[in-house]
């Protein structure tokens, strides 16, 4: 990668990346770029660990999480060689509970995320594409669910589900999803609205493609980043909500989850008596699971809106790339963008379609032997004001 100053703006012909056909390059970047950012890599790695724990956790747990080790001791025992994370008030092994509780937490969160995402796609895209009365009604439904206070409602529902089906992961995920789909639907609707009138959708309609085909093959693929982002957001919401419900003791307490462990920690008065091993492990586990999802979401955000990404271009990395003439601090109005090819930038494709994603890629040409001289490489500092304007779908485009 090389970063030059704007003096080298016109010297692109030597650039390897610009020789590639644009759609091909864009397509490949779409798949390859996402995992490159350190935030995303860390997030994905953490998530992978959690998924593995969710699958094998209950099997590798040293003991049965419900097994009581002593009938005489009445206080939680601090961590020891036999119990690495100590024991609970009921003398159960905390580590085993932690490992066993991951499955339920992760499962509920992903079921909630999956169901809510499907709901938000169906409702949001339909509303955005159909317009008129359908749009009004569906938007109203979404707005209603947005303003309905979710947690109080869930507390009320689970207060009465508890006795019956409160320990059933799929059911819990489903109920959480019902309160969590609206935000995604709203964002998807806004973006569908703007896609609906694009020329390529118009032409598909004129050619005579059917509605479901236009939605499925023309619109939906372009919504992928938003769908992914809203999926992660809902999973995050699911983790938090499930933990909260279990913490309140509204989920079957014999069903191990991290929230349930926090519930027992409170029952034991852990925060008042300094039994830190009762609430720190599950709390950290939930927080890290949430952080991993949020980190991946950061990556998707930066993927959709390249300005957020280049903002993270540190001077250290720039120096490593052999650039010396970089401004001390990135100043107003000038967003440093690693340019890949002039065609994509000059094209000025509106929105965040394949062309709009061009800046920020790492040009293969930058790794040429000998290192590129400053200013002569494939990358330039350009002002990105022009082609990022239409990219404010995220907040301004809502409603």
């Amino acid at each position, binding site marked *: 990668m090389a970063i030059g100053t704007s003096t080298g703006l016109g010297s692109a012909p030597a650039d390897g990346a610009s020789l590639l056909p644009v759609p091909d390059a864009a397509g490949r970047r779409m798949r390859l770029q996402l995992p490159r950012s350190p935030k995303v890599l860390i997030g994905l790695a953490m998530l992978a660990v959690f998924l593995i724990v969710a699958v094998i956790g209950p099997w590798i747990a040293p003991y049965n999480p419900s097994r009581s080790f002593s009938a005489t001791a009445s206080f939680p025992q601090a961590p020891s060689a036999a119990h690495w994370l100590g024991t609970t008030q009921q003398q159960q092994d905390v580590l085993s509970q932690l490992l066993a509780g991951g499955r339920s937490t992760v499962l509920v969160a992903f079921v909630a995320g999956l169901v809510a995402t499907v709901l938000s796609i169906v409702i949001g895209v339909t509303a955005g594409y159909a317009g008129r009365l359908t749009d009004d009604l569906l938007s109203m439904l979404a*707005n*209603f669910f*947005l*303003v*309905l*206070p*979710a*947690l*109080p409602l869930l507390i*009320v*529902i689970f*207060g*009465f589900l508890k*006795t019956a089906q409160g320990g059933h992961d799929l059911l819990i995920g489903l109920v959480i999803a019902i309160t969590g789909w609206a*935000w995604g639907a709203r964002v998807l609707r806004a973006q569908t609205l703007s896609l609906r009138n694009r020329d390529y959708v118009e032409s598909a309609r004129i050619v005579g493609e059917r509605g479901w085909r236009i939605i499925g093959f023309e619109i939906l693929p372009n919504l992928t980043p938003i769908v992914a982002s809203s999926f992660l957001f809902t999973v*995050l919401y699911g*983790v*938090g909500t499930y*933990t*909260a419900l279990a*913490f*309140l003791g509204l989920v079957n307490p014999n069903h191990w989850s991290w*929230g349930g462990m*926090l519930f027992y920690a*409170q029952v034991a008065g*852990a*925060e*008042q*008596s300094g039994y*830190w091993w009762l*609430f720190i492990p*599950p*709390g950290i586990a*939930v*927080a*890290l*699971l*949430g*952080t991993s999802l*949020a*980190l991946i979401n*950061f990556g998707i*955000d930066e993927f959709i809106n390249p300005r*957020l990404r280049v*903002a*993270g271009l*540190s001077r250290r990395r720039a120096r490593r790339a052999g650039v010396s003439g970089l401004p001390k*601090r*990135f*100043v*107003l*109005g000038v967003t440093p963008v690693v340019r890949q090819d002039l065609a994509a930038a000059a094209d000025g494709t509106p929105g965040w379609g394949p062309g709009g994603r061009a800046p920020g890629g790492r040009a293969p040409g930058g790794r040429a032997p000998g290192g590129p001289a400053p200013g002569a490489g494939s990358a330039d500092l350009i*002002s990105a*004001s022009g082609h990022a304007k239409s*990219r*404010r779908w*995220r*907040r*301004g485009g*809502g409603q």
Partner: protein
Amino acid sequence: MRTLARRIGFYLLTAVAAVTVDFLIPRVIPGNPLDAVLAHTQGQVITKATLRALEVQFGTHSKTGQWGQYLHYWSNLAHGNLGVSTSEGMVPVTTVIRGALPWTLGLVGTATVLSFILGTLLGILIAWRRGTWLDNLLPATTFFQAAPYFFLAFLAIDLFAIKLAWFPSGSARGILDFPAVNWTYISDVLDHAILPALTIVVASGAGWIVGMRNVMVTTMDEDYVLMAQAKGLPKRRVIWYAARNAILPSISGFSLAIGFVVSGALLTEIVFSYPGLGFVLLNAVQEADYALLQGVFLVITMAVLLANLAADFVYVFLDPRTRQEA
């Protein structure tokens, strides 16, 4: 103003729907308010007349049918009658709520505004200094946002209330139970509010920081900001121009966040035994106190609706474009 009229219309409809949901709660979930009361009056002889009176009280006497019960519910609401709380000694629900509401409003209101202001300012700062070490604050704040509220509250209690003993660990005020408005009382209440408020600010601040920072970064690339910079305006002025344009989405986000904040505050109240609405709601659920539960849920929903409406008004006032489009 058509925009506002439309919004008000939407909120009215939503309010009707919310009342309907509230009406349906005890009817769709398993269990029966009558049984719950009967469970509370163990050992006492229940005569037919008592039973009948209770049925009327809960609006479950079967003669009128569901529709009649629904209308009855509305008429009760119109008279400010939310029923009596069975778990709090047959006190009217309105009394219980009136006792709890000020605590929640005081705590949540202050903490929310604080977290909004602090988060937005930090977001502006981080956006302005992008590319510096401040960028690393973002993942760190994410951790606090992803951590469950009550976990942070546990940590705060363990550290500040028990180990350091700076603050009390729960409840809203000390033993002095008479609300005489003097400095002793006020400082006592503040002393009890600091720790819960702190956890709310820390946990919800991250959302504002990230949101503000992302919009601010985009706004800073606008031509008018470049222009302001180019003609040599002082830096503070330039930041002000960029920030006041970037803050609009945060304000519309504020309305959405209120719902989340109220929810989060429920947990905080429960952990700190703070006698607000969340605490009352959980008690009502655990005691199967249907009338109280309905009442609290209704009040929370209406509060969120009102807050949303207020945020909409502010938005229309701040952003002239929304006025023109209408």
